[in-house]
């Protein structure tokens, strides 16, 4: 990972120095190893805080909406999953492609510090990864953890590859994986309606309506969200009733249906750890099943499944009764 970081730093410096780009968007060191924050670097000097490590889970593509409006080109480091969001944003004319220099950067999965802490390791100083083994160094000493157990939820089932790149920094191969990203959705589908309702009730009632899921979501790029717009008739701040919890999450999932790239940021940022990605993934699974495989953000053009149709699409009644899978 250190070698990747060095290479990235080298490229960032070169791009800034040559004037090819006006800024580089990447991650900046935090107080600990595990709290890097997205940042924009405009000078070589600022790059002293540049970091790329196992905790750089944040998807940087949404920042490009603003960045691509600024003068000069912006270079950005995009992990495989981030490139789908990037394409989707370009498709929706939210990001000006010509203003962005995409550096595809390798990702072997990112860690969730909460999951490490939950295993009893605190005051983490450094991590060292060897295949599936993660040596976590902390004040308390060194602990060996199993990599799959401390990955961010969004990385657990990730099979994504870079969909767009102007150059790439990939130094290590990512092992091929065979995972079913719909396994959790299928588990819920197999439950009875009562069980499903109970499950979502318990999860959604934790919602504090902080809007983190929405604000981090690259598909939620509205200038003004309907939920912030008093004229929409559904604007709300904190949820006052279980209905509002449902309404917000149903409508949000519907609005991003066919556009959600499954980047998993919603679940990463939820302070209450609501598995929000399971909402969006249901739409993805249904779209795949009912209208043919579709991966949002694979390209930066074309219609989404909800803005297209065929004359013989399944009837809603048949769809809910599981006539087609």
């Amino acid at each position, binding site marked *: 990972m250190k070698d990747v970081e060095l290479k990235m730093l080298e490229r960032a410096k070169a791009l800034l120095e040559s004037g090819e780009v006006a800024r580089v968007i990447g991650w900046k060191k935090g107080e600990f190893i595990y709290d890097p924050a997205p940042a924009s670097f405009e000078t070589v000097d600022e790059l002293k805080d540049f970091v790329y490590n196992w905790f750089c889970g944040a998807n940087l593509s949404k920042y490009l909406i603003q960045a691509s*409006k600024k003068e000069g080109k912006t270079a950005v480091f995009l992990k495989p999953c981030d490139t789908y969001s990037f394409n989707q944003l370009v498709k*929706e004319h939210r990001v000006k492609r010509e203003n962005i220099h995409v550096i595809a950067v390798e990702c072997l999965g990112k860690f969730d510090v909460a999951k490490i802490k939950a295993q009893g390791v605190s005051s983490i100083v450094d991590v060292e990864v060897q295949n599936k083994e993660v040596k976590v160094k902390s004040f308390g000493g060194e602990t060996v953890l199993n990599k799959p157990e401390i990955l961010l939820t969004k990385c657990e089932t990730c099979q994504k590859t870079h969909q767009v790149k102007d150059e790439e920094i990939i130094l290590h191969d990512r092992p091929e994986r065979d995972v079913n990203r719909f396994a959790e959705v299928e588990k819920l589908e197999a439950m009875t309606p009562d069980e499903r309702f109970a499950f979502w009730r318990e999860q959604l009632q934790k919602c504090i309506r902080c809007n983190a899921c929405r604000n981090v979501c690259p598909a939620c790029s*509205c*200038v*003004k969200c309907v939920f912030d*717009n008093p004229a*929409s008739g559904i604007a709300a701040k904190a949820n006052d009733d279980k209905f509002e919890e449902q309404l917000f999450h149903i409508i949000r999932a519907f609005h991003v249906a066919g556009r959600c790239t499954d980047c998993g940021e919603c679940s990463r940022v939820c302070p209450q750890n609501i598995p929000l990605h399971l909402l969006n993934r249901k739409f993805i699974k249904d779209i795949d099943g009912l209208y043919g495989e579709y991966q949002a953000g694979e390209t930066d053009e074309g219609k989404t499944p*909800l*803005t297209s149709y065929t004359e013989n699409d399944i009837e809603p009644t048949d769809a809910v009764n599981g006539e087609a899978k």
Partner: protein
Amino acid sequence: MQRIGVFICWCGSNIAATVDVKKVAETIKNEPGVVYSENYQYMCSENGQQLIKQAIKEHNLTGIVVGACSPRMHEATFRKAAEEAGLNPYMVEIANIREHCSWIHKDMDEATEKAVILVRTAIAKVKLNAPLQAGESPVIKRALVIGGGIAGIQAALDIADAGFEVDIVEKNATIGGRMAQLDKTFPTLDCSACILTPKMVDCAQHEKIDILSYSEVEEVKGFVGNFNVKIRRKARYVDETKCTGCKICMEKCPSKKGLNTFNMGLNPRPAIHIPFAQAIPNVAVIDPEQCIKLKTGKCGICQKFCGVGAIDYEQKDTFIDREYGAIVVATGFKPIALDNFNEYGYSDNKDVITSLELERLMNAAGPTDGVLLRPSDGKHPKVITFIQCVGSRDTSGCGKPYCSKICCMYTAKHAMLIREKYPDTEVHVFYIDVRTPGKNYDEFYRRAVEQYGVDYIKGMVGKVYNENGKLMVQGSNLIDNEQITIESDLVVLATAIEPEPSVRKVATLLTASIDTNNFLTESHAKLRPVESPTAGVYLAGVCQGPKDIPETVSQASACAAKVIGLLAKDKLKTNPCVAMADENMCNGCSQCANVCAYGAITYVEKEFRLGGGKTEVRRVASVNPAVCQGCGACTVTCPSGAMDLKGFSSKQIMSEVEAICKM
């Protein structure tokens, strides 16, 4: 502050018998914003409208709700009344308390309660209505008539006579349609060709009419006053401008075994042919399925003999784009297939024929030169049995549930003509009912019975079977209450008619609605019988419902009158209930344009002021109100809610939802 007036109509007893209209009006008085609430016997009447107008003026109403019949009936009436009283016509909402309430509920309390909710819902909506101004769009002064039968011909002639350009698109090689196949017409027994062919010629010679035969409508875009139509001109392999109709090719063509479709397949015809002697245009056409040259590349005889070099084996389908202000659909009908009616033995016995086949057999220009000879052995039939309602009024699912309307009359005609021409022929008619409403119709039928001695048997036929070369018609005589079997030489089936199948495609292209029997739906059965629900599209002839020639011609002329009325205008008021994008909220994501069927949405780069003196250029949607039809597909696609629909705004609908859910 809103000042809403509410007007509850009794509709005589139509509403008042089940809805306590006075109570509704009283209850509604207490609704916030309502300053006037009244009930009256007939709101749509002159007096009712006067009452509304007066109230608008006296009470300074900002919006009105009329609790009455369906808005599809009188919304326009009440809007006009409001406008005359100085209120914007779009500040009117209708609560449908007749079709959706009084007519379907029996319990007075229940219906009254529902009427109150429906009126409240309309109030909730009207409070959020905004005055709308209709825009204007120009009218292209040219009409398209789809179908060149008698309906299309009549409509085209009337429109053209009024001075407007008309194109007739006919899928067959000639105009004339079904009427051209008929021998004589009821109730006057005049010769069909004698009255039709002059009209066909008129069409051909009319300087305002362009006949596009052997052509089909491929694509329709646009809207009333501004239709853009793509027409496919099918390859006929004969240059229409060169062919003189000399028919030498027909004589020389070696492939003569094609089915003469004009004669209902009763005799063969050559691959290159002119459908019938009086065809318009009088131009040959090659059937590519039958032509040796087109199938194998060898032959080319017709080309050799054609004196004017009209034959062109290389001809391809071509497309032309034309603009029209109005469209008349006159696609006509065909007899149903008899696959479901094995009991009549149609497919097994050559001498069981349909009425239309009989028309050809009796026609002087038909396969037998007008001599009635039966198909099997070419002999004169001595006993002829007619069977009525074959596939009509059939609720079993095999046929059609409706009455085909023309069969009783043409069977009487056939019977009469046969008895006239061949008095030694015995004619029996099995019928369920004889339906003869119409001027001189019943007299006509009675002549068949009384003067010509046709044997009418009330009863159904169980089966027709062949016994030793004789057709045995076994049926019941309900009057005498007995089973009878008639030994016949010829059996004629009064086959039900159905819309020409191509109407489905036409309807889809025109977004005109179709009923369960594939007949095109008129806008209103009584008040707007020749208009389709799609503005600018009119219906003539059997495509709208079974009818005979006099009715078809009347309807075609009525259509023409409507079209002329439309084309006479230079500009049309456009529907102001169109989509509109709020630029401040638009993301410019293009999703709305992806679902717009009309291409009404485009994008512009616009500068917006941000805080602190900063500005930002954003891509935002812009709707062309003249092109937008107001469906609202874009509004749901838009995640930010920037796209809204005037007259059916999200706020209005949500407000209606709130009101309608309250018990």
